[in-house]
């Protein structure tokens, strides 16, 4: 209740400056009805700029995952709206959202979600072949080199370590050069050392390809590499840090936990 008094709106710059690729306006999300209703989001305004690496943080139940699901068109807001590349998601039907995913959205999952029967290379190019496109050979080789999988391209996921599997997943998200990549706890299922490697890789990729990336995470180190870190609590944005260090992030989290 005390957090409610913190004015989330004031902390965030008004939505849609000219450079924004993802914009959310007054997004709320309510699950269930009546007495059992739960408000996961209570009015969120935000935007992500082109080339920005944004971390979305917050304690369990803060609504950060819900926010990402709504930004990524996996879920629909109860009220408010979301735009990706100036396209309002709310008006799209299933086929249009599918097309949007092909052209504008990439995903990185906590549990990798690779298809076990396909090789690493086939997993990476899957979004292209689903869309009926051919990979750009040069770009693809460069991507493969960057994620460090040149000599693992024909391995099956079961023959790869967790870190290697997540590298495959990152390459799969980047291969279509989407407008924005959403990452859901990308280091949540990895040990510390591997997590660091993956975070470095994400940071590098964002820089080199000028890729926009929105990452939901618990991990303060993950937030530390971000250009911006949004903190959610109880369904509202309560803090917006630009280029924070790991210590600043930890402090912010402690503050929220208090």
């Amino acid at each position, binding site marked *: 209740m005390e957090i409610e008094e913190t004015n989330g709106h004031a902390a965030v710059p008004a939505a849609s400056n000219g450079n924004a690729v993802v914009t959310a306006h007054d997004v709320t999300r309510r699950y269930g009805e009546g007495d059992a209703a739960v408000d996961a989001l209570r009015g969120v305004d935000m935007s992500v700029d082109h080339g920005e690496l944004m971390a979305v943080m917050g304690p369990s139940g803060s609504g950060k995952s819900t926010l990402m699901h709504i930004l990524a068109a996996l879920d629909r807001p109860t009220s408010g709206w979301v735009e990706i590349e100036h396209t309002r998601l709310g008006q799209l039907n*299933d086929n249009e959202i599918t097309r949007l*995913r092909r052209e504008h959205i990439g995903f990185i999952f906590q549990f990798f979600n690779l298809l076990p029967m396909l090789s690493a290379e086939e997993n990476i190019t899957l979004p292209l072949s689903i869309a009926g496109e051919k990979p750009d050979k040069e770009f693809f080789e460069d991507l493969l080199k960057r994620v460090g999988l040149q000599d693992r391209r024909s391995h099956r996921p079961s023959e790869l370590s967790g870190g290697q599997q997540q590298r495959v997943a990152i390459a799969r998200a980047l291969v279509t050069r989407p407008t924005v990549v959403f990452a859901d706890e990308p280091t949540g299922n990895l040990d510390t050392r591997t997590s660091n490697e993956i975070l470095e890789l994400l940071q590098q990729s964002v820089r080199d390809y000028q890729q926009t990336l929105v990452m939901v995470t618990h991990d303060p180190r993950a937030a530390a590499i971000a250009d911006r870190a949004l903190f959610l609590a109880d369904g509202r944005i309560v803090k917006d840090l630009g280029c924070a260090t790991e210590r600043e992030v930890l402090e912010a989290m402690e503050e929220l936990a208090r």
Partner: protein
Amino acid sequence: MLRVALRGLWGRKLRAVLTAIAIVLGVTMVSGTLALTNAIDSAFNQIFSDTYASTDAVVSGKTFNYQGDTSQAPSLPAGLLDKVRALPGTDVATGLVSDQSSAKIINRTGKAIDTGGAPSFGFGVDTSPQYQRFNPLKLLEGRWAKSSNEVVIDVHTADDQHFKLGDMVGVASLHPVKKFKLVGIARYGNVDSIGGATFAVFTIPTAQALFDRQNAYDGISAAARQGTSAQELVDQIKPITPSNAQVRTGAQEAKKQTDDVTSFTKFIRYLLLAFAGIALFVGAFVIFNTLSITVAQRTREFATLRTIGASRRQVLRSVIAEAVVVGALASFVGLFLGLGLARLVKWLFDQSGGGIPTQSLSLSWSIVFWAFVVGVGVTVLAALAPAFRATKVPPIAAVREGATLPPSCIAPFTTWIALGLTAIALALLSYAMFASSNSLGTGLRLLYMGVGVLLLFTGIALLSPRLVRPLASFTHYVAIGATWVFQLIFYPVTLAYWLLRYGVFSSGKRPARRVGALVAGFVMPPLGPALAVLVLLMWIRSKVTRWQPEWPMEFPNLRIDAEMTRVARENSRRNPGRTAATAAALMIGLALVTFVGTLASGMKASNRGAIEDQVKAEYIQTSTDGFTPFVAGAGDAIGKAPPVETASPVRYDLARVDGSAQYLSGVDPATISKVYHFDWKTGSDATLGQLGANGAVVDKKLADQKHLKVGDTFPIEVQGGKTTTAVVKGIYKAPPFFPILGAASVTVPAFDKLYVRPRNEYTFVNVKGGASDATQKQLDAAVTEFPDNQVQSRADWITAQDADFNSFLTFLYVLLALSVIVSLFGMVNTLALSVYERTRELGMLRAVGTTRRQARRMIRHEGVITALIGAALGMPLGLFLALLVTKALSQFDVRYSIPVRTLVVFLVIAVIAGLVAALLPARRAARLNVLEALQYE
């Protein structure tokens, strides 16, 4: 995307194969049936077109047809041949004597060869060179008969009985057995045997004498002069053809005869295809269920595909593509298995002496086409619902742990849909069964019944998820009892197996104990040595590969494991839809065997009842096969046997009675009432004495149909063309299921006046002092002259008829077993998938102290519960369907009799099915590595 589907399928090879088997058996049946019947049809087509290749016109007698029965056509006067020869268009013409059923060749043991209902032809053929073109027979060895004591027989019989040229062969005709010198061996066209039929060929005068055709022929074949077409010749012959005969061109005759045969193969084909259809229907259930489970298990995979840009359509296509591949694979395998099956059936027929003529049994494009249409079509249809479910997977499921498939959009209405389908099915079935024959043709009626039954099964299957919970609590206890009995029965095997494994694998235990266990296991009856070999192989495998035996395992006990069976029951209930669909597949098979068994039991009861109500005689003389009429002389012969008090012949043949084809019988008024009980409606036994030359007693059914009353007259016309007018003297009611006498009966002398060659269907015999073995011997001795008939006591006669029912019943059971086997694969699939899905759970159970044997028993119990749910649904359904059909057939007095013993056997079979289906899944559950299972994601 297609690649994803195919790779996915490849990754689940075993499951794909198990799924495909569900369809393979049905396709096998389809392609086998088509291959066999096509080959038979084309063979007959070939035979008949060869036979009539150089014949331009054929004259033959017209036959009556009563409900598909025909009898020997009337003969043609010999004078007709002269008239045909004298026609301007005729080049040559000849007559042929041909009797379908009277020439019984006597085998080495002195009995007539049993053709199993196939014809036993007696031919008289003019074999002069100028008439050879008309001869359908081809001489293989020796020469044609030239004198009255010579005969030529068919090669199949000659081979079978090891008759050689020069042997004396006995042949019974319309006269007692006579020996003939075998001078030649021949075959019909180019086939060695036609379904076990035999033939004996004589000179024309010999045949005319043997088969009572003085100055008569059965067929006249003519060839046209140069410049006269076959049709012109037929037109010339037509005016001189008697009214009871017809003339056709050679081509028409070939087609007619081919059609007669193929109408029978067509019936067989549709019968077999109907059973293939049932197996495919069950297969569709199995595929639907397996795919539903795998789609649910792949929820996250589909969601991931959706998040990276796959459209719903692509997800749909990938599941359908999988189905197409599985279906095509199944069709391909089924196609060749079917061909193999057809060859096997042909071989079996050849071995059993009832050879069927076939062209080479090879694939034709039409068979390939149908195999693939059926196999792929059924698989894809069954895959549609799971495929649509897959498209409903929301992309967000990719990021949720333990995401499950959302309920299908029709789920809330399932019960209503199920009830609706069941109602429609019942309406269709009732309409099909009770609509009058005028308003509904047979074809449409069968179609409605088929569709009705399929809808009924689907409706009940859709309804069954709601029944799973209550049924499971009931079948749970039955399963406990049944499984325990099986455990007890197999205990020696289980114990021996355990001892042997103890001896081989438990290193570290005292050597003396291990040796003791090995010896004890080895000598344990009944399978000790065989199990020893098995365990030895397991030992080698564990040494050579990384494979680990299912060991250590605790000592086998016979306890009823209340806790594990309870877990199993809850497992079977937690996904009612899945359990229901698995059980429904078995339900169909069990419903149909129950239906067939109950109906057959009712028919047997009706048959027995009908005989007991009518026949008072102690002995009954019939032909060897029990249904073709036999020589009247045989009946006279038995009358002379010493113990006989009364011998009452019943003559029998087709006639046109008051305008419609019916059976007419001839009875002996003085004796018939002593052996046959008339249920008089008008008249009494005394009426029989007043029949006279033109009196008749008629069955009430005919009387009602033709509105006949006592004193009315009605015309009788027989096949030879003779007619008479009879007066109704009495009306009696015969049991409609099996009326022993014809629709109308006249006296024997009156009957004999109408027919040239009168025959008996029965001779009813009463003896002095009742039935006994000694009497039986004396009666047998009296008819040795007539090897084509048999004398049975009434009880034996009834038993023999029951045996006929039973062999047909067995045939149906074998065909239905196919669908039970298909559903068995469905159960294996479901259990295996459930074990796979619950890997982690099983690991947990093992970690908290469940033993391997308990894990195994748990899965087995679930299998038996599921199978028994199938039985609990199927058997009442079968009984209900039988009741419905019994009611529909009430005009034939079919009784409703529940074969309790048979049903118990079906129940045991269901339990065995559950146990067998659980065998491999239970093994997998028991062999799980606890640590790996716990970490399993």
